[in-house]
């Protein structure tokens, strides 16, 4: 068991080194190999169940040494880039971080122990990181070369793959560690790898976004470090399990917990800190998919959920719930006005993370279960959507959802996968919606949270429906592109699509094996809900998933039965254009008043004037930062 955990940490590292020294041809087989090894290991570990390891004595010394050494290296690297690019802000933050690191190293009464604790939630995270993460690496094989070609940048793949592997290793480390100092260490590694990957293109914009991400995440890191020290000082807690054991914390001692929460907010790009995730969209799509939707941002919410025993049921919990719900609402509103698919996905990611944080903040059994399930489902669906967007961009050369009109005609497989991803985000019976149902039900008793969730969810449906409609629109535009069939591209897409479907169908075992025990452990009480025979049952209500699946089956059955009546017997006629169709030019051309042929063009509505991105963002900044500042200044007491 211990060996497997160690292997999960080491194998990506080994691959990282192998990638450095192998030549380009081997990347593909290597990625597939990594996918198989990592997923088998993680599945095996998940099968074996949870465990907890205490590193003492000699092993402790060694690992402590490794961590300290790497931390020093990281700090040196930060100093180097801040000096090289003349970034004062980064320099100052690094200095503060150095002080924190030195302080932790030279604390007199340091505990001589490091714990590795793998509970059910960690196992679920491990599965996501090792399966979804490595699938994305496979996708990168088909993607990156063309991407570099498109953008005219010299190949940096020698850097790309090792860094991604390093990142996967760090993520694995993050979710298996129990000692907060270890979590902090891996947390910082993800920050730095994310910086390197965001500035992948090497141009000004990339560096600007990279440094913004670095700056904000360093602030988060400092909050983490300070919170860590304070937690040890004030409550003598230095592990995540310690927080669970301690249970609810009185409000006067809440500051360190809140600092850790802020670190989580930054990592999850919540409202005042959201700009880094939007900037990060300049990175190649696999990076966006891996770091900024399915794994790294999940580290933030992972931490917040793990902290939930400390604040569940307290006033801080309510504040966090309102804060998350507000982010969910405002980011959904901003997303409505977006045309760029990647930006829509970015805002939707922030919104969904807000929903997770909100659920964690509500802190009842149902709500925390909703948070954990949403983390799982969102990771898979979002990874699928990001990868599809990347591939669409390579197919039609644009990310604008208006340009995707008629995509189903030239790239049917890709369009169906994308639509499936979108449907899994907004419609039952797929997981994301079931969790939305759970969180709205859990939020029912607090009208503020509930109102934000209700309005946000209506907006979410709007912007996704627009996109879905564009993709599936049939005969409008002749897009100039060809559908490429690359195994490296479509294997991950199919696998993820299949994953979305399977996780939604098998929500029962997922809930019973991963979510329910975790919530019981976190909140020290039962979840108040169970899933049986396709029914999600809680004290508040029942979601009959099976029925919706049966109805979906009926749709398929009807379509097959009525094939003759409704579909194959149908005669295809041209669209109605008041009779002025022009068949020579194309289906959507019509003869205008002057006898010339014009193209009919209809686009979706974006409300740019009402839902102005700048104004809404400013509004969001004001509200969210005031919530945080008031809490920091002791508003909780």
């Amino acid at each position, binding site marked *: 068991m211990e060996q497997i955990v160690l292997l999960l940490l080491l194998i990506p590292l080994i691959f990282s080194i192998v990638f450095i020294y192998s030549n380009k041809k081997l990347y593909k087989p290597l990625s597939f190999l990594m996918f198989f090894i990592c997923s088998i290991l993680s599945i095996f570990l998940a099968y074996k169940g949870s465990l907890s390891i205490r590193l003492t004595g000699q092993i402790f010394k060694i690992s402590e040494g490794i961590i300290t050494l790497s931390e020093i290296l990281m700090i040196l690297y930060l100093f180097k880039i801040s000096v090289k690019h003349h970034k004062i802000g980064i320099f100052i933050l690094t200095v503060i971080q150095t002080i924190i690191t030195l302080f932790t190293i030279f604390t007199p009464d340091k505990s001589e122990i490091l714990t590795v604790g793998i509970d059910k939630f960690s196992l679920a995270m491990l599965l996501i990181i090792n399966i979804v993460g490595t699938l994305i690496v496979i996708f990168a094989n088909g993607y990156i070369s063309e991407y570099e070609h498109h953008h005219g940048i010299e190949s940096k793949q020698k850097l790309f793959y090792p860094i991604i592997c390093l990142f996967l290793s760090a993520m694995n480390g993050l979710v298996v560690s129990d000692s907060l100092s270890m979590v902090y260490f891996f947390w910082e590694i993800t920050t730095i790898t994310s910086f390197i990957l965001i500035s992948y293109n090497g141009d000004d914009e990339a560096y600007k976004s990279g440094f913004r991400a670095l700056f904000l995440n360093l602030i988060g890191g400092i909050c983490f470090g300070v919170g860590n020290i304070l937690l040890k000082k004030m409550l003598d807690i230095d592990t995540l399990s310690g927080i669970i054991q301690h249970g609810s914390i009185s409000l006067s001692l809440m500051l360190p917990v809140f600092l850790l929460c802020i670190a989580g907010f930054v990592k999850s790009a919540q409202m005042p800190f959201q700009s880094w995730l939007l900037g990060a969209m300049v990175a190649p799509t696999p990076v966006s998919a891996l770091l900024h939707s399915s794994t790294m941002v999940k580290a933030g919410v992972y931490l917040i959920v793990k902290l939930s025993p400390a604040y569940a049921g307290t006033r801080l919990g309510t504040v966090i719930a309102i804060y998350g719900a507000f982010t969910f609402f405002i980011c959904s509103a901003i997303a409505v006005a977006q045309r760029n698919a990647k930006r829509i996905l970015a805002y939707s990611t922030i919104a969904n993370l807000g929903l997770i944080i909100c659920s964690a903040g509500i802190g009842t059994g149902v709500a925390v279960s909703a948070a954990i399930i949403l983390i799982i489902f969102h990771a898979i669906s979002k990874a699928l959507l990001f990868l599809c967007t990347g591939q669409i961009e390579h197919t039609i050369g644009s990310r604008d959802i208006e340009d995707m009109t008629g995509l189903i005609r030239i790239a049917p497989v890709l369009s169906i996968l994308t639509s499936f991803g979108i449907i899994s985000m907004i419609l039952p019976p797929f997981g994301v919606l079931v969790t939305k149902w759970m969180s709205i039900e859990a939020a029912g008793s607090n009208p503020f949270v509930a109102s934000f969730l209700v309005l946000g969810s209506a907006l979410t449906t709007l912007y996704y*429906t627009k996109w879905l409609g564009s993709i599936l629109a049939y005969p409008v535009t002749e897009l100039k592109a060809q559908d490429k069939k690359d195994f490296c591209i479509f294997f991950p897409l199919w696998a993820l699509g299949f994953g979305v479907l399977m996780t939604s169908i098998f929500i029962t075992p997922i809930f019973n094996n991963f979510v329910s025990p975790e919530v019981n452990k976190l909140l020290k009480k039962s979840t108040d809900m169970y899933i049986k025979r396709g029914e999600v049952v809680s004290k508040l209500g029942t979601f009959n998933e099976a029925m*919706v699946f049966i109805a979906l089956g009926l749709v398929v059955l009807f379509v097959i039965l009525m094939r003759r009546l409704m579909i194959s017997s149908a005669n295809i006629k041209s669209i109605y254009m008041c009779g002025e169709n022009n068949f020579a030019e194309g289906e959507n051309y019509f003869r205008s008043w002057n006898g010339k042929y014009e193209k009919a063009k209809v686009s979706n509505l974006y409300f740019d004037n009402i839902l102005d991105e700048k104004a809404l963002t400013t509004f969001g900044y004001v509200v969210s930062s005031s919530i945080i500042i008031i809490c920091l200044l002791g508003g909780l007491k």
Partner: protein
Amino acid sequence: MITLINLKILIKLLLILILPPVIGCILSGIDRKVTAHLQGRVGPPLLQPLYDVIKLFNKENIVVNKYQNVYVITYFIFVVLSLFMLLMKMDFLMIIFVYTIANTSLIVGGMSTGSPYSRIGSVRETISMLAYEPILLFYIIGMYMLTGSFKISKLAYTNKPLLYYLPLIFIAMLFIMTIKFKKSPFDFSTSHHAHQELVKGMFTEYSGPALAIIEVAHWYEYVFLLGLIFLFWYTSPIIGLILALITFFLEIVIDNICARLSWEWMLKFTWTIIIGLSIANILFIYLYNVKIL
């Protein structure tokens, strides 16, 4: 014993499948008749909607692409499913989410034909979805706060009608009923009357059997929507029915006395005043901690 129960369920199921379209058909017949009388006309026979549907089934099936009818089937099945769930008194929030599948499918179906007119209609329908969805959810949350459960079946245990405590939400629901019935001030996504600007909106490219299925689904939807109103006075079915019928006639009258408004107006109005009303009602319940169960 088991077979008896099964028989009961089977009969119930059959009733649920057969009765609503009959009611819906008659309701829409009444709608046309009353409208005609309000305009000083005689109007079509009461069963005219039925004749229309039978005729449509006998027409040739023409499409723009082979897949557009799949959306119609999806729409039909999920409308029936949501009505079924409503009559089985299941979880209210789930019902609305299932109902969303039906509407989304219709919208995407309209867009998928690629015709500019149906695309305009679909886009407008997404807007009206944005307008009515929050109100429905607020209604549900209001019900939850009063009864402590999202299940409709819990309403049977109380003897106080929801209308006493949710009057503002009732007004909001009346408002969105106009949107949902696609009646006059808000019939901008699809209607028989807006030829000049819309042709037939979302359904421009549907004909024959597909249009007939849409029509039958509308009958189910009529019953579903009036069922939502019925829940306001669940305690006494007679009053509940009267409430639903009054709502229906009110919608017909509104349809006949209003001119079509723009979607901007509707969106602004719902997202300020109507949502404001709903939130005010919910806040009232929250602050005074009203419970009826």
